[in-house]
């Protein structure tokens, strides 16, 4: 599923974690040690710039896994 792979790459750039982590579609956001408000802002910007999709704070709060964010894009 190339679009999901590309999204995961974009996700890792957007969150800009200090420590490298492996992220899969099923990775839970809460399990990422550096998932914080700054990372959330980065993801919102990425979704807007790369996919032209506006994600709200409530949208993000409803996401449990990384794939849940991808699904918000409606690709």
């Amino acid at each position: 599923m190339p679009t999901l792979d590309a999204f995961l790459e974009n996700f890792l750039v957007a969150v800009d974690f200090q420590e490298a982590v492996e992220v899969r579609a099923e990775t839970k956001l809460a399990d990422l040690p550096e998932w914080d408000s700054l990372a959330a802002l980065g993801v919102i910007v990425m979704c807007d710039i790369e996919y032209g999709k506006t994600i709200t704070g409530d949208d993000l709060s409803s996401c449990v896994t990384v794939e849940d964010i991808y699904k918000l894009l409606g690709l």
Partner: protein
Amino acid sequence: MGLSTLNNVRVAGIASCVPKRVLSNLEDCRPSQRAERERLVRNIGIEHRRICQEWQCFSDLALVATERLLDELKWGRHEIDALVVITQSPDYLIPSTAIILQDRLGLEQTTIAYDVNLGCSAYPFGLHLLGSMIASGAIKKALMLVGDKCATVRDPLFSDAGTATALEFAEGAPPMHFDLNSDGSGYKAIILPVGGHREPFAYHHCIPRRDEHGDLHWPADLMLDGVAVLNFSIQRVPTAVERTLAYAGVQMSDVDYFVFHQANRMINETIRKKLRLPEQRVPSTLKEYGNTSGASIPVTISAKLRQPLQNGKRKLLLGGFGIGLSWGTCILEVTNACIPELITV
């Protein structure tokens, strides 16, 4: 309304003043927060900020900027018809800081003086307010003082500054085009919740809670919903810019410089990229001066555009946006303006 045009108004000069005390976002934090701060600085683009001395008010900075500007313009104090201060950190809750400054600056008692309560969006709204008085023929020369004392050691965004802008009636001056907007449904996005009449300051507001870093937070602290502000900024500002350009009949390529409120790198870069603007035409002072609230447009002009605006004619697009929620755009031409070097006190 939103869209409007003013004629016969000229920006004669702009001066900006920042405190000499410099805060480093990387050095001035707990050692345990250093790695987190490096990531934060990378993303918000703010390395250094300026902070007032405890005894200094925003108005002290604006006073210095005004005196320098009047001296360099060779304007007499008696010529000033109006003085409007736009701030959210007045000397006192009442009376208006502008009225106190009328006396401190030695302006005539016939001067129209009052404050306007706006933050990051202040600059275009202020140009419109005083520009309207001038364009109507009611007054000839006016001063707009914009800025805030908003820096704290802990918060990595905000920085202090005071600025002065001189406006005058000039027959045949190029038109100024405006797009001014307000959305009060977002008033909670950036708010000082305590101390007004909805929630007067009380004893229980003095009891802080300690966060995971050991820092104390008071119920009366500024509250900022980062996601809401980000989404507001990156959705509304590019659209407003395009709408103002279309209204003014100006092409993107006709504008020499786009000067936006300096919010943070993430927001400003997203706006720039959505508008497909080259970096050279979008000056930034975030790295050195941080987010100076309503002063950030004039501070950026003083720090980055002094030479081009002093010599010849330049078309500018100014974009202010933030607390309120409130956002305004102004397209104007600046010709041979007086722009003193950025002042440090």
